[in-house]
């Protein structure tokens, strides 16, 4: 490869660094839209985001005013922060001044001809089954397919220049840049990538994903996209390097520490107000943690995902009976793809920072052939019906007659779906009970099965050593000490219809999929006698009378469904029967607790209302998802069990006394906590500037290519969350845009060591993308607040010294 071409490849990589990644709708991942700028301090990064995308980086004056008026910002904290930033005016005056200083919204319309043309070709290329007529030659890759059709694009005035383009994208890109100084390449490329940041972020994700079947079939690269875009600019008659672009370096617009955003002290005071109350409650609970007697053996233990929504249902499960609950990452530590029964679809069911390493398949067992046959029959019938409707709707000859003939029937169906969705759901559920679910007759391919491996895929099944390893990891990370007769791994998913963002409500740790399969697999592993024997040798003794079950919590309705259990003893069966009843009680209580926050819901009819939301095709907000998230607590449940966290905290079980070497803590902080920061930042930025970092109102969104949404009928791919997931209405916020507070109950020196050994964590804390407070059980549960740079401060209420600053490492 010639030298200048290999350098150009690196320039493309560098230019794309400012972009985050955007996942497709089927596996929506809540990620920081400014992930590409996380190496900068938060304040500088949001200023850079403003320069690159025109997005606001701090809460708006209206959001701050609403929080101030509602008492969510404590006056003392605000006075403290304002003084620290050198502001001397009264809060009311400052808000007025900020309002006056807010620049008029700049119309950064991306509706230029160049953007429209590129969005058009990208949409037709990346289509994942929405289009009936697909783009020709997609299998050759984006650049090749575009090169074949672009010379006939009549929107391009100078399209003749596209006839003799180089065959290879890198050479084509070099040709397009031939008039640009190599020293300016990176800036020019960045300009073009940030012109349609949503599409570019999607390409970035797809080109880096090794397991995406669509990418394997229709490859697209950043180089191919840029080559097409720059030549399209030429064909329109635009300069490849517009005036001023060459001077625009990243960091040129930095809002440095000497000139902080006026909203920064307000945000910090808002965060401090929330955190102070939370830490006060946790610390009070910590003071009593050792005084109680050893707990009795619970009847059942339920492991939920760390997701903030689990906190509400966990509290009500604990209140419903002698149950203990834990929080663990909802993929249950299994880095895998899951292939459901009767499907070619391979679902990546682990977080985006973990590469899948195994494939587990659901295969038909021989223990219930009748159930399998019934399932096959109903599924075949359903598929045939869907195919028939689709072909009638899409067939040129049949479409008109179909509409004429079936209009009345579809009209009645539409009226029913609109007026009585709850009743329809009940009828559908009654019908669905006849269809055996796959968990009742399928086995999971847990054993290694090299014969089932695909050349392009992952090893199918798990070795004996791997099975023991994942089971051990789960119990070690949660600091498990005592096993109940029944242990239930409980994944979660949502229930919603007509919702492109359905996967954003599923389990984030399972890459936007329901967590039930992962729960079933870990339960099956833990019921394996060979695994138990190995665990016993390693000091984790599971009593013979303990059985592991799997369940799935539907966050929309708070219903918890137990999957088909293994053979149970009489005692276990009794416990499970009682647990089913108590889970229903917990569901009623949890739904009632959530009802006031959901507009139109009544506490007395909360269950019916959640069921209606799950089935209503006109419902823009089936549930609040992770809205409200603001903290991530790594501690035993005893520290959080006695008070409500309002569904705002991720809860990961952690027991400092069983983790002398800190490996469990390191795994939690480098894995689940980092994913928590991604989620938190997505909610934060989608809230502070929904038009730029979110995806606007659902009312005007359209799904494009089954991969994403855009507003209206074209333009950039919208990457964030819709308005309805964050706001009660246009003027009333629901989500409080606060950066994540990580709380660890562990010796401070241990936490320091973890941070010191992991540059990614240190960068996130030092650059204030999230905050950290340690409650040190070896120092009377004293609070230590991590300071950027690696020192610790003790709050003035706890220490005679206002800033008891000590080195981060006591080594």
């Amino acid at each position, binding site marked *: 490869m010639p030298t200048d071409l*290999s350098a150009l490849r690196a320039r493309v990589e560098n230019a794309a660094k400012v972009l985050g990644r955007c996942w497709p709708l089927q596996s929506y991942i809540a990620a920081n839209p400014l992930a590409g700028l996380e190496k900068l301090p938060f304040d500088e990064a949001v200023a850079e985001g403003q320069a690159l995308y025109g997005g606001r980086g701090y809460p708006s004056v209206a959001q701050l005013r609403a929080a101030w008026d509602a008492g969510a910002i404590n006056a003392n904290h605000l006075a403290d922060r304002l003084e620290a930033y050198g502001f001397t005016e009264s809060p009311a005056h400052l808000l007025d001044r900020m309002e006056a200083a807010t620049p008029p919204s700049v119309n950064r319309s991306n509706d230029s001809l160049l953007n429209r043309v590129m969005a058009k070709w990208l949409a037709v290329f990346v289509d994942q089954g929405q289009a009936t007529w697909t783009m020709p030659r997609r299998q050759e890759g984006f*650049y090749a397919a575009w090169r074949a059709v672009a010379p006939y694009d009549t929107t391009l005035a100078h399209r003749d220049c596209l006839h003799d383009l180089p065959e290879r994208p890198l050479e084509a890109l070099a040709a397009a840049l031939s008039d640009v100084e190599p020293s300016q390449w990176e800036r020019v490329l960045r300009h073009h990538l940030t012109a349609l940041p949503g599409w570019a972020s999607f390409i970035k994700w797809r080109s880096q994903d090794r397991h995406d079947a669509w990418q394997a079939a229709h490859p697209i690269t950043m180089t191919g996209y840029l080559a097409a875009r720059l030549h399209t600019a030429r064909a329109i008659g635009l300069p490849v390097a517009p005036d001023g672009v060459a001077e625009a370096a990243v960091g040129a617009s930095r809002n440095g520490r000497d000139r902080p955003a006026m909203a920064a002290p307000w945000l910090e005071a808002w965060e401090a107000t929330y955190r102070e109350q939370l830490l006060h409650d946790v610390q009070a609970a910590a003071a009593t943690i050792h005084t109680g007697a050893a707990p009795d053996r619970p009847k059942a233990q339920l492991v939920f995902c760390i997701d903030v929504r689990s906190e509400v249902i966990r509290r009500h499960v604990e209140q419903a009976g002698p149950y203990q609950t834990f929080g663990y990452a909802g993929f249950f530590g299994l880095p895998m793809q899951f292939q459901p029964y009767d499907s070619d679809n391979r679902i990546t069911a682990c977080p985006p920072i973990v590469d899948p390493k195994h494939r587990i398949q659901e295969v038909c067992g021989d223990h219930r052939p009748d159930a399998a046959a019934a399932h096959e029959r109903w599924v075949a019938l359903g598929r045939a019906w869907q195919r028939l409707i689709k072909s009638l709707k899409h067939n040129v000859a049949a479409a008109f007659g179909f509409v004429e003939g079936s209009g009345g029937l579809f009209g009645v169906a539409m009226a029913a779906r609109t007026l009585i969705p709850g009743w329809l759901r009940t009828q559908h559920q009654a019908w669905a009970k006849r269809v055996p679910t796959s968990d009742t007759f399928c086995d999971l391919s847990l054993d290694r099965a090299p014969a089932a491996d695909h050349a392009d895929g992952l090893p199918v099944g798990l070795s004996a050593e791997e099975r023991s390893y994942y089971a051990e*990891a789960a119990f070690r990370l949660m600091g498990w000490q005592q096993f109940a007769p029944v242990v239930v791994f409980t994944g979660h998913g949502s229930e919603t219809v007509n919702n492109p963002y359905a996967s954003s409500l599923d389990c984030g740790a399972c890459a936007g999929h329901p967590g039930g399969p992962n729960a079933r697999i870990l339960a099956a592993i833990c019921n394996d006698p060979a695994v138990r024997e190995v665990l016993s040798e390693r000091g984790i003794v599971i009593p013979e009378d303990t059985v592991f079950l799997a369940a799935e919590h539907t966050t929309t309705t708070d219903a918890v469904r137990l999957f088909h259990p293994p053979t149970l003893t009489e005692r276990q069966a009794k416990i499970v029967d009682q647990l089913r009843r108590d889970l229903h009680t917990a569901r009623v209580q949890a739904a009632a607790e959530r009802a006031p926050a959901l507009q139109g819901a009544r506490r007395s009819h909360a269950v019916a209302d959640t069921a209606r939301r799950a089935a209503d095709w006109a419902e823009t907000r089936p549930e609040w998802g992770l809205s409200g998230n603001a903290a991530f607590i790594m501690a035993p449940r005893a520290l959080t069990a006695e008070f409500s966290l309002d569904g705002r905290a991720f809860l990961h079980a952690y027991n400092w006394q069983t983790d002398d070497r800190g490996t469990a803590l390191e795994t939690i902080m*480098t894995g689940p906590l980092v994913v928590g920061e991604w989620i938190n930042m997505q909610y934060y930025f989608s809230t502070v500037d929904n038009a730029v970092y979110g995806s606007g109102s659902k009312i005007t969104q359209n799904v494009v290519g089954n991969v994403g949404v855009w507003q209206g009928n074209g333009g950039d791919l919208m990457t964030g969350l819709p308005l309805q997931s964050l706001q009660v209405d246009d003027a009333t916020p629901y989500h409080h845009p606060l950066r994540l507070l990580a709380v660890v109950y562990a010796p401070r020196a241990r936490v320091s060591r973890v941070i010191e050994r992991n*540059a990614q964590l240190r960068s996130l804390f030092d650059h204030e993308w999230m905050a950290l407070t340690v409650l040190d059980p070896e120092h009377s549960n004293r609070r230590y607040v991590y300071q950027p740079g690696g020192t610790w401060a003790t709050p003035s209420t706890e220490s005679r010294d206002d800033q008891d600053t000590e080195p981060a490492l006591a080594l």
Partner: protein
Amino acid sequence: MSDTSHNIEHTLHPLKKIEIIVKGKREHFVQDLLEKSGVSGYTIHRNVAGKGASGFHEGHLLFNDEASLVMFFAVSDQSKIQAIINGLSPLFESSSGVMFVSDTKVVRLTKFLSAEGQQDDGS
């Protein structure tokens, strides 16, 4: 061991060796560069721990494959190694990572010089 192996004096041929250490998220880029540069093969060590300008990076994290470091090494002639250097130098202007180039010797020269660089496809 056969008797003859003692008597054969293998000829050592001089070549260049490049070692590259980058963050996990750059693995794809570096691997692609090596494929395109025409080296006949390379070795990847994943989950490498170590300390550099941005601090210590732990290896073998259970739930994070992006944060740890990846190390590559490849052996080839001067021109192909130079192409890799040229392709990496701009990357290191804004991303952390290091590369080391050294003289090395190999016995089976053809094993290291047989490949042509992969062409880009149309993506």
